[in-house]
């Protein structure tokens, strides 16, 4: 599968707590308008290649209090009923992988609703390459086993632009699940 996807700004009004929905309600449109996503499935597992525009990369946040890294997450629902926009729900988990420009390796993510993301060390991930060149990030990696994606064949993507201080629910996202086929 190879697609160019238009992204939307994750709805701040749905974010947990009182602060983010209100003080960031003036966000209009996604900071990252589109992303190119290439997905291959083989006996080796899943291979991904993601490219997205980023005029001012933030790769090094070391020793700083107010810098946020560029980042991308690919997630999949554990069951077809799990919603992407809410990061799943209790009993309807989503799971995936987080890449941050300021660190290696990838991070395994799992969530059952807003504010419930749990991070752990990613296993079975190989061939991770990332490069920023000419205003664009390019990220490629392979996953030998991804239970949620293996079962539901759906993906969603989130992009955080560090230079715009995007983090947590401040992000550009695919409008819904993307069918990756068999």
């Amino acid at each position, binding site marked *: 599968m190879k697609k160019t996807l238009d992204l939307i700004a994750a709805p701040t009004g749905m*974010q*947990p*707590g*009182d*602060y*983010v929905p*209100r*003080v*960031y309600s003036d966000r209009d449109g996604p900071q990252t308008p589109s992303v190119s996503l290439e997905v291959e499935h083989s006996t080796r597992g899943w291979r991904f290649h993601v490219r997205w525009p980023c005029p001012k990369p933030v790769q090094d*946040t*070391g*020793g*700083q*209090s*107010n810098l946020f890294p560029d980042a991308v997450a690919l997630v999949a629902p554990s069951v077809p009923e799990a919603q992407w926009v809410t990061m799943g729900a209790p009993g309807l988990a989503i799971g995936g992988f987080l890449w941050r420009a300021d660190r290696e390796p990838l991070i395994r993510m799992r969530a059952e609703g*807003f*504010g419930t*993301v749990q*991070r752990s060390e990613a296993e079975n991930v190989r061939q991770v390459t990332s490069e920023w060149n000419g205003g664009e990030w390019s990220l490629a990696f392979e996953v030998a086993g991804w239970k949620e994606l293996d079962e539901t064949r759906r993906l969603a993507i989130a992009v955080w632009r560090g230079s715009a*201080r995007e*983090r*947590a*629910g401040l992000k550009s996202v695919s409008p819904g699940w993307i069918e990756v086929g068999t």
Partner: protein
Amino acid sequence: MSNIRESQSAPRQLAMVLDLNKCLGCQTCTVACKKLWNKDSGSDYAYWNSVETLPGRGYPAEWQETGGRDSEGAVKRGEIPDIDTAYGRAWNFNHKKTFDSAGKPGAQKEWLRPDSNPKWGANWDEDRGAGEYPGNNHYFYLPRLCNHCTHPACLDACPRKSIYKREEDGIVLVDQDRCHGYRFCVEACPYKKVYFDYERQVANKCIFCLPRIEEGVPMACARQCPGRLRFVGYRDDPEGPIWKLVDKWKVALPLHPEYGLAPNVFYVPPMSPPQLDARGRPTGEPRIPLTYLESLFGDSVGGALETLVAEREKRKQGRPSELMDLLIAYDWNQSFALGPKDAEVSLE
């Protein structure tokens, strides 16, 4: 305050009062806190307790310019201070070069100086103050720490509910296992007393020395203070110093009450000697303008100062004053009301 989370109220509240008339600016509290809790490299720039000179830009610089709650109780958007320009980056001195140059006859003398080019720091504008010598120059020291607010902005701002108030004493804590380092808490706290550990990628802040408190021992900043200017106890204890200073005598006031967070660290405002006119005669006007103190401690500061002056006069005349005796702190044990008195480590 309809926008305040219900979960943040605590049945009992631990609190602190600091008498600014007794603060020497010696930073013993700062060092006691830093050495005890906060030596990690990722928060080397962070001082849970700091002492700044006012009037001044403070630490972090210009911290008073953003944040707080609006008239409806909603937390306003704040800023995340920059390490280089607002907090100030920790630096080392060129001790070795200085030492070596002193030992070499004829060598150019190397003076002691920072080994980097710092732009700001936690005590950068020490003793600068405001006004013109000798007429109205003035300054005072303001020790600052987390206020363990009754309505904490940091708690409201965290989308992961990583910040909570303890039921038993109202201490505001960060659950660092839940924290993902998003820094909305740093942004929202108008006192700028939540910090970001850039190595561990989590927020950290003053914990009111809770392991000491649980043993009946006051916070390190309070216990180590040579000036005995800190008082510790529970808000609702009528026998303790907090209730007496805040509620009975009404001389201890919250910092920036207009922020709407109901802080639980209170300050006895600084009295000041009179200004001098062109011929060097006292004018009767205090050197620290009342309007400036009101901008820090609210409209009640004038009344608090009048009470302090009146009680001080009583004591000068040899008459008893419960307030002055309490503030003088003849016996430091009377400054702390934490429960089991026998918990303090004994040398006997």
